[in-house]
């Protein structure tokens, strides 16, 4: 009985590897580039504004 219940248990927390979704990688890269570009331009080209 106990063996049957163990077989129905969900996998242990470490058994499923974590994977970052593709959209997060793409979107995160775009957002990072835009923010970095803004910061660089703000403190170089547009420093006087």
């Amino acid at each position: 009985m106990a063996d049957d219940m163990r077989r129905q248990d969900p996998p242990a927390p470490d058994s499923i590897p974590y994977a970052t979704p593709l959209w997060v990688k793409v979107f995160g890269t775009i957002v990072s580039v835009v923010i970095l570009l803004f910061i660089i331009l703000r403190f170089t080209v547009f420093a006087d504004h």
Partner: protein
Amino acid sequence: MTMSPRLRKFMLAVHLTSAVGWIGAATTYLTLVVVVLTNEDARTVRDAIGVMALIDWYVIIPMAIAAFITGLVLSLGTQWGLFRHYWVLFSLLLTVFGIFVLVEYSLTLREMAAVAANPTFSSSDLDFLKDPGHAVHNIGGLGLLLVVTVLNVYKPRGLTRYGWRKQQAARAAPAEQRLHGTAQSSQFFDTRGGSPQKITS
């Protein structure tokens, strides 16, 4: 901590109102930016800058701060959490970045409003007021708000590493209870689609 449904609905209403108000005010602002950048009449430009400063300080900034605070409360007070889902995390980061840039721009705008109100106004002052930065900040801000709106409406799937660990722990806990005969039911959090639902099987 989970909010009661009544409080959650109230906070959601305030959040939507302030976020929509922010977008609406920013869109209105664009009209004034076009007036400032395309008009050569000093009186019109000076008046438009004065109105822009008023809208900025008394509508856009309060709406932005209200949307930010209510967004924080909604995420922390529901099972969405603040750091569990990527769409919530991106919304938070983009809103913080947007408010930071908005406040910085507003300080410059305040100086411009003071120049516009100065009786000894010169042609060089007119060039100072007709700064293309108005359009860059306004269009950039509207684009950012559009992205956050799309994220909030579509809620793309994707748990952060922290959210994934929390979900795994939540799934493992009922199994432990079942194994030890302390509970008859198991509870899982289904994060597909809309708001997380507690499923009891």
